[in-house]
């Protein structure tokens, strides 16, 4: 039985903690450092790539991106990444659900295992997948040199993004909400669809977006299993690498910029979804 405590929901609306006066470490020092660091590490390199990509003008950019092999690689990468994002948003949410709501032996181990694709060098992941699904597959599932192989590799490396964004939201979800829905006459499925799912959607979208943007940049895990057959299994990152190797940095930068634009668009889209979600918070 509970004593009257103030929860976050019940806390009287007062001055938020962040608005309270606190000692400052020199005016704007933190902001300055953050901007400087971001500029050096993120903004400057990206600008150089984008600049390189469009240096020759829009026409040169477009023809570099639409050379048959690059165009095929881009289409494969975006298509496979979208498919992977959709599959993992479903499976990742399911796994997060099981990890939060179910009790089973070895749960802590499984929970740790989720992060393994993060920790593993992607080339090692590629090697593991090659052994498992390669020509000599012990599972008799030969995915070498196929697009399915590319998808499997991307599924492997992007799963943690969805699990780890959905899991904390599910953990914090107010269980009383579900019980309130039950007492109002809703069954378990209806409660999931009308009450739980809408509260998870922002996290799911955000996880899917992260998985997608990670997938379009993937190199290491796909390189071994896919065999990098141009027009068939070559992904954009490998295509870019090939162009650099043949000393064509201008078109490599153009393809990179195309990926950059897509990733940026997706991240902006995500941000909009998050804002929409928190407005209703």
């Amino acid at each position: 039985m509970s004593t009257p405590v103030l929860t976050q929901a019940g806390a009287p609306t007062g001055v938020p903690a962040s608005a309270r006066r606190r000692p400052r470490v020199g005016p704007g020092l933190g902001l300055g450092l953050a901007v400087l660091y971001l500029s050096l590490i993120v903004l400057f390199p990206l600008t150089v790539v984008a600049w390189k990509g469009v240096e020759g003008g829009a026409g040169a950019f477009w023809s570099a991106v639409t050379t048959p092999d690059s165009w095929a690689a881009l289409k494969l990468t975006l298509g496979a990444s979208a498919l992977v994002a959709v599959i993992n948003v479903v499976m990742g949410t399911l796994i997060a659900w099981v990890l939060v709501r179910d009790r089973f032996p070895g749960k802590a181990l499984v929970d740790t295992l989720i992060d393994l694709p993060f920790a593993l060098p992607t080339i090692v992941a590629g090697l593991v997948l090659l052994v498992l699904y390669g020509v000599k597959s012990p599972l008799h599932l030969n995915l070498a040199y196929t697009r399915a192989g590319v998808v499997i590799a991307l599924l492997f490396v992007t799963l943690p993004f969805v699990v780890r964004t959905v899991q904390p939201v599910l953990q914090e979800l107010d269980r009383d909400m579900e019980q309130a829905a039950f007492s109002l006459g809703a069954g378990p499925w209806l409660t999931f669809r009308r009450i739980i799912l809408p509260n998870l959607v922002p996290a799911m979208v955000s996880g899917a977006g992260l998985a997608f943007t990670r997938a379009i940049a993937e190199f290491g895990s796909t390189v071994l299993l896919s065999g990098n057959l141009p027009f068939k299994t070559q992904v954009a990152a490998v295509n870019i690498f090939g162009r650099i190797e043949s000393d064509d940095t201008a078109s490599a930068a153009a393809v990179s910029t195309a990926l950059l634009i897509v990733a940026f668009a997706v991240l902006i889209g995500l941000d909009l979804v998050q804002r929409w979600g928190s407005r209703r918070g």
Partner: protein
Amino acid sequence: MAIEVRGVSKSFGRTPVLKDVSVDIVSGSLTALLGPSGGGKSTLLRVIAGLEVPDAGNVLISGVDATRLSPQRRNVGFVFQHYAAFKHLSVRRNVAFGLEIRKRPKAEIRARVDELLQLVHLEQFADRYPAQLSGGQRQRMALARALAVEPQVLLLDEPFGALDAQVRKELRTWLRRLHDEVHVTTVFVTHDQEEAMDVADEIVVLADGEVKQAGRPQDLYDNPASPFVMSFLGPVTELGGRLVRPHDIDVTAESVEGSTAAVVNRVVHLGFEVRVELTAGDRDVWAQITRGAAGRLGLQPGDTVHLRPVPAAKSLAAADA
């Protein structure tokens, strides 16, 4: 609709929370389940709602055995301490939820929700989200949501527990008035005896998983069955080995028949009421007298006075005497 709880037992792991509890709740009444934390009152409420399944015993709602019914089939309104607001839905949609899933016609839902929002004074907040409401407003929304489906019984689990004192007092007066208007059988859990006495028609005192006593607030106060109930429902003090209400103690300057001598330690003026703290023999005792009586006696610390229970005073043998 009447609620009958018959021989309900429930344990969490090895800890028994309810031990063979039987309670009768009269149709249309407003009943408080009162007791200390951990006494089993919330669990009993949740058993009635179907949110917990008892290990033994039955729950009958208007004569029908509901023990094995799932919560969604009991037609019970439940209000949670922390509101359990549907965060992603507006106030209007929160209140409409139960009606929407029953697939009532849109116009009917709209009319009913408007009526309920008016009842809980939230008309102008219909399009806000719960995050934009205060605690008291959220709880009123939760109440409207529970009432929307016209439940047979309304159950409230420490409904005002998360609110500050001022809002708490307002809401309980308001709950009392609401009940007089709506007349739905209502059970609410509280650990605050004043709240229970203020609002309820009937009080069930629960402690250690058992019903200690049930009855009208006045009866429980005047005729407590045990020292526990007596001390839980109001202030008590010990005089001559018996528990007495401090306002049932006569303080006189002169010794009278049956009185005990005591030395005044402290006199606290609380407006109309005056608290007198004394020592009788080796025991501390206190008396609650009026401002006028205190003035006539002119009490000062160190004075010796005489105490005895007023003639009609209810007293019980003290547990440790």
